[in-house]
């Protein structure tokens, strides 16, 4: 694998995580529990789509075959998407989305802080922009964990159940593939493994402050970053890619 191939792959992973997250959050549009949350979740979805656009645009440049961000986002088959499985989990109820956001945005907070120091100037620039937005996403999910965890018996139960159900998909975020090892060596990417302890500490703090127990199960399911997805992915793509596949090159 050349440095260029590894960077392309690395950008696709980052971009796909943002794209799929954005899609799931956008499913809340007009379905939020209160108006302010409808706006919050769709605003966060917008931040993610912007990040996906920048990363995939840059991935297309690095690949050098003239693929645009839209072509990468809407024309690839399922096994060529490299997002973590946790991103494609269904939006579930509000507690499930909040738990998902906490587990993902805590990772992103650590990841994008590191990527701000990437030797690749474009990636560092995108990260510098993204980190400011991730901070807002993180505080949003943290504050909702407090409210749900310390709210009613039911809201606590729903949040606890969501954390339990999502836990086995969190480990994948810290895996290192061959392209990531190479990116780390080139001081372009980040050492995911090194983020895990800090991640656990931050997540534990928020959850225990919300009266939520940390799951003890240690089994981890992964595969997304190798292109092996859960059954959710096909459903996402059938909706997300429908228009571009039915009407190729359609624009506003």
């Amino acid at each position, binding site marked *: 694998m050349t440095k260029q191939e590894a960077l392309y792959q690395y950008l696709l992973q980052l971009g796909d995580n943002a794209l799929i997250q954005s899609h799931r959050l956008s499913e809340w549009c007009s379905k939020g529990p209160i108006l*302010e*949350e409808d*706006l*919050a979740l769709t*605003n*966060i979805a*917008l*931040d*993610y*789509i*912007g*990040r996906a*656009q*920048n990363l995939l645009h840059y991935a297309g440049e690095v690949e050098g075959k003239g693929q645009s961000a839209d072509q990468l986002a809407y024309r690839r088959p399922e096994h060529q998407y490299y997002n973590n499985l946790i991103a494609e989990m269904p939006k579930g109820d509000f507690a499930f989305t909040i738990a998902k956001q906490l587990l993902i945005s805590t990772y992103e907070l650590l990841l994008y802080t590191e990527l701000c120091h990437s030797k690749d*100037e*474009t990636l*560092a*620039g*995108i990260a*510098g*922009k*993204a980190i*400011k*937005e991730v*901070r*807002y996403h993180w*505080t*949003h999910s943290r504050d909702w964990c407090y409210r749900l965890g310390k709210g009613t018996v039911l809201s606590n139960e729903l949040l606890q159940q969501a954390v339990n159900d999502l836990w086995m998909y969190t480990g994948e975020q810290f895996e290192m593939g061959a392209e990531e090892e190479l990116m780390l060596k080139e001081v372009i990417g980040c050492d995911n493994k090194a983020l895990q302890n800090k991640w656990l500490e931050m997540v534990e703090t928020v959850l225990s402050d919300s009266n939520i127990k940390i799951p003890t199960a240690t089994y981890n399911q992964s595969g997304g970053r190798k292109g092996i997805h859960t059954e959710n992915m096909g459903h996402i793509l059938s909706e997300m890619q429908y228009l571009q596949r039915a009407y190729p090159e359609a624009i506003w």
Partner: protein
Amino acid sequence: MVKESYLREEILALLSEIKDPEIPVVTIEEMGMLRDVILSDKGCEILLTPTYTACPAMGIIEQDILSTLKEAGIDNAKVTMVFAPAWTTDWMSETTKEKLIRFGIAAPVHSSCSNWLSPKNVEVKCPKCESTDTKLISQFGSTACKALYSCNHCHEPFDYFKCH
């Protein structure tokens, strides 16, 4: 009148007139989005930095730039997005902040780099009655750049331009 050639400063001056489509009381120059103009034999390259990664206004601004230049007779222009250094609300001058307040938007009060973990400690002044007795309704408001506040004194809701 269409001139034959322009200096970098003249093009910057032309573009400095373009308003932010979402906050039409400030220009893209005042917002700090317009970074530079590079003239070469290939044409004219405008360096623009996005305020937010997905700011929907960026597409409109790009079109406004190209049409402004076209009117002045500059056809071979292109807009390039630059991400570094990342745009920050710290680049807004006091005058720009005053304009935001007069428009009804509370201006960002501190740098995004400090204090982000506890934004509740931030004292946001109501743009209508200037009371500091205000409360955060939602960190996410009508556009990517704003949070929603309400004033405990005059009871008006208002937008707050978030620190970034």
